[in-house]
């Protein structure tokens, strides 16, 4: 008897390492849902959006990063590192798509473009079309190019506030705002004019300190 019991014991249970690891994911996504208070908030939690824009150089240093959902800074950095380790091992002339679910969780996609010393990366979910996102990177880069006349990494490093302004004219809260680089340029020029105008007079504003003391 005992032999049969012993043998069948070792043959029966169906548990696998694979299912266990997938299971964790599910748990994670459940606990994330559970942490919200109401059902309607759960619905909203699943936002359909571009989740992040990353620009990093070929050494893996971030140059511009913008996350459209809240990520703690350590998580941001871990993600950047992981993305870089995938990108740096990719050959030339392969597709612009990379499996992102292992880094950014279920329903995430990643497209990237490599220009000179920089990687431009967009992370988004199934609400966006992959090739359209790739086009959006192109719009971003072409706009930078118009702005800085042959943009290079250094332009981005030393003008990152301006890059933020440009990015904000293209992607807004994780949605595509403007796709015409001409229109983006117009908006950016307006901003630049305003900055220049007020740079001339450096007045201490009373209202700022008033606001603090309120």
């Amino acid at each position, binding site marked *: *008897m005992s*032999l*049969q019991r*012993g043998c069948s014991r*070792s043959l029966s249970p*169906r548990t*696998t390492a*694979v*299912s266990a690891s*997938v299971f964790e994911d*599910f748990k994670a996504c*459940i606990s994330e849902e*559970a942490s919200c208070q109401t*059902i*309607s908030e*759960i*619905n*909203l939690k699943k936002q*359909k959006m571009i989740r992040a824009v990353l620009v990093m150089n070929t050494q893996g240093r*971030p140059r511009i990063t*913008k996350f459209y959902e*809240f990520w703690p800074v*350590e998580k941001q*950095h871990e993600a*950047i590192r992981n993305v870089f380790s995938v990108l740096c091992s990719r050959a030339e002339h*392969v*597709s612009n*798509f990379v*499996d992102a679910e292992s880094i950014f969780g*279920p*329903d995430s996609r990643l497209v990237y473009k490599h220009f000179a010393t920089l990687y431009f990366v967009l992370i988004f979910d199934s609400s966006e*079309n*992959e*090739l*359209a996102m*790739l*086009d959006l990177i*192109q719009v971003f880069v072409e706009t930078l190019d118009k702005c800085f006349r042959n943009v290079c990494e250094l332009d981005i*490093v*030393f003008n*990152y*506030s*301006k890059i933020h*302004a440009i990015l*904000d004219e293209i992607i*807004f809260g994780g949605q*595509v*705002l*403007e*796709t015409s680089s001409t*229109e983006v340029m117009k*908006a950016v020029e*307006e*901003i630049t004019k305003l*900055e220049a105008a*007020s740079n001339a007079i*450096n007045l201490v*504003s009373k*209202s*700022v300190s008033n606001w603090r003391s309120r």
Partner: protein
Amino acid sequence: MALSGMRGLSVFISDVRNCQNKEQERLRVDKELGKIRTRFKSEKGLKPYDKKKYVWKMLYIYMLGYDVDFGHMEAVSLISAPKYPEKQVGYIVTSCLVNENHDFLRLAINTVRTDIIGRNETFQCLALTMVGNIGGREFSESLAPDVQKLLVSSSCRPLVKKKAALCLLRLYRKNPDVVNVDGWAVRMAQLLDERDLGVLTSSMSLLVALVSNNYEAYWSCLPKCVKILERLARNQDIPQEYTYYGIPSPWLQVKTMRALQYFPIIEDPNTRRSLFEVLQRILMGTDVVKNVNKNNASHAVLFEALALVMHLDAEKEMMSQCVTLLGKFIAVREPNIRYLGLENMTRMFMITDVQDIIKRHQAQIITSLKDPDISIRRRALDLLYSMCDVSNAKDIVEELLQYLSTADFAMREELSLKAAILAEKFTPDLSWYVDVILQLIDKAGEFVSDDIWFRVIQFVTNNDDLQPYAAAKAREYLDKPAIHETMVKVSAYILGEFGHLLVRQPGFSPREIFNIIHEKLPTVSTSTIPILLSTYAKILMHTQPPDPDLQNQIWAIFKKYESCIEVEIQQRAVEYFALSRKGAALVDILAEMPKFPERQSALIKRAEDTEVDTAEQSAMKLRAQQLSQTSNALVVSDQHPTNGTPAVMVNQLGLLKVPNPSTRSNMDNDSEDQRLPQVNGTLSKVEALPQSADLDGVLLDTLAIEGPPSSIVQPKSNSNLGLGGIAVESSALVPVDQQANAVQPIGNIAERFRSLCLKDSGVLYEDPYIQIGLKAEWRAHQGRVVLFLGNKNTSPLLSVQAIILPPTHLKTELSLVPETIPPRAQVQCPLEVVNLLPSRDVAVLDFSYKFGNDMVNVKLQLPAVLNKFLQPISISAEDFFAQWRSLSGPPLKLQEVVRGVKPLPLLEMANLFDSYSLTVCPGLDPNPNNLVACATFYSENTRAMLCLIRIETDPADRTQLRMTVASGDPTLTFELKMFIKEMLVSIPPAIQKPPQASPTPLQQASDVAASTDPGAMLAALL
């Protein structure tokens, strides 16, 4: 420029850049943070310019990956600066650094609102951008009306308006109540008339967000979307700056097509036609060109068009056109297009009816497994996995095995799992399956999970003819120099069990088997040793005549492990040692393992189903034919002796009973003769018993014959009536009062329908004259329903008419219904049902007949309902989650909060699901208040499609729950969701287990027997 004026910032960035290593960088950053902190603390003398500079530095440090846990206040405070540069910095940095629940943000709401309603457009833009990025619920409540005002204002510039649209999207997501659906639907439609493409793009994103929650309110936007698409596709009135590499705004085209995919159908034929024209133009007019960017743009539109075509469920012609295109794509040079071609083929394979055309590209897809790009290789693997079936399994699995040796490490695990599943699911013959798994273990043992090898052993154990083959194979692998431990386990197990079958072959003597296995013992881990010990015990048992040397050697091993610290090993060693000294008893105890019960992963089950189906069908048909022939003869010959006792005749038709002299007793049904049940009982016991196990099969078999049943039955009944006067005579006997009865249905028709939705046989309708019974058999998307029309009276029913009014999703074919149903006769009318589409609509049987002067007409719902095309499956966790994740979001995955649910304990709810063929999978969801279920849905259009359901209940309030339904087809998801919702909101009162035969007055007498004898139960039913 913001930075040109800030020398300190440039210096800091240069410093950081010049740092040689991470440590230096950290020191530099810490120093800077310390300085900023001090400056912020001593408020005095901090100019806005300085503040701005420091806040930028903070953002830079934050981007480098350092946590900046102070200074948020300073960033937020800059928002209220009067000058643009400071305000800009405040807004930008706040949206990057601060999370939406931050308390400081609340302080800024008023300032933000002032900026939004103010007249300064640049301030408006800044404020909208921040709210759009990090605005939370509070922002939503206080700002939504202002943002809506901006969006519809005619004086607002496009620059502001487009931001307002996306800002509203954010606020809507934070709190959907801020958009009043009734009022906003009209405004939304007006927004789509916008000429400025920037505003239109944002508005379209807003529309997508709105319709994804509730498309019904926005039907009026649908034709406008089609108009926009036409305008873009025809390149009418598109400003140059919105043309991207010659393509009119690909983003807007894509978004518009996205929005259209949220509407389940397009009803208006004109709109539908114009849309298809546009789609056709996109499909045909896109070529692969030299310029990469142009290619990307045009194909972004093209792939979205493909998705829309799939969603709209176009005619087959257009679908095959799409497949042809995809076939072209997977072979082009452009890697992006290859990638998306494969991905879309996989999607298309899951939902549409073009599998055969896709399969023609198999060779090319296999080539893609060797693509230099791992992203493409993965997609190719996915596609091969989903397109694999019995016809191509051998090729595909062998390709996968071959690829396994060279595959990237990262892909091997997935690859071996998929190969194993496919081999099991579609194995053409079991020896091939054994080959595949052994090869798999050989090539990638470390990736082969235990269940894979457990499974192969189950197969071998359960299939006697496979055992010698497996033993020989296992022996072969043991000869290899270095084998994976899993291989040691499998081969030791197989050789222990079945090695003796080959004892006469060279290399298979007990000693040789023992030696080669024992050689591996020093190399294996403790988990394998117990298996080896069992093998030794088995070898010992099979060694006849006993070999004392071998015996001593094995006993010595058992002895050695008797003191092993591993309890499993120790126990086995002790027990085997003791057992092996018991002599003859050993043979009994160590006898071959019994067959495993069939248990199963979804995959296996499905695989077996298909096999049985094909194998058994022919056998069943044959048997059915034979039976129908004999039954024909029987009825005729039997009829004479019974001398026109119609009840018996009906029984014979129904049960195909073998003639029995005992039926000769002239029984009168109406007299409720006590002998009848007895006779019936003995009848089926004595005569039908040998067949009784097959009874069900027999019944269904008769249905399997195309057409004939009714035509066979019909002449029979007529010929019986041909006996003449009986019919007339009996009609004369019909009691007068019965004729005068108003025709009232017996029992509740709706109730009967509901209970038939849950079981496959029973009474559909009954009144004093007629009883309509029903027996159905559902197989995938087809169903065979037999209507049993039984005349309960002693006079015929005339002008009998039955018409099926099928809903559009069902194809039905009802065989000829005779115009007259003879007295006390029962007529079988087979009805073939083919399910074309998922739908909740119900087919109706329009039935009428005339009895005496009463014309009766009833409309009966037929239980060919959605759940009949569901088949329960049990699915493994990995499959479930893989599917669950791949079906992301609407329209494939829909979620709804259902209120007003009939409160049910979870266990009962699980039973309810099970009764609808939705298999509840316990343990998948760790939350005990949730319930996860799945099933396969069949329709001609969707083919077999997996449906996944998750119900989250609220233990505090059982009347509400949240339901998520996912499947590969949007219509299916939607219909199933509604179906389950209806099911939960109005739970049928009695959830009965299927074979509860409803007693029929026609056979009242047999009721007693019905409760015990299965044959009689069927008789009662029919």
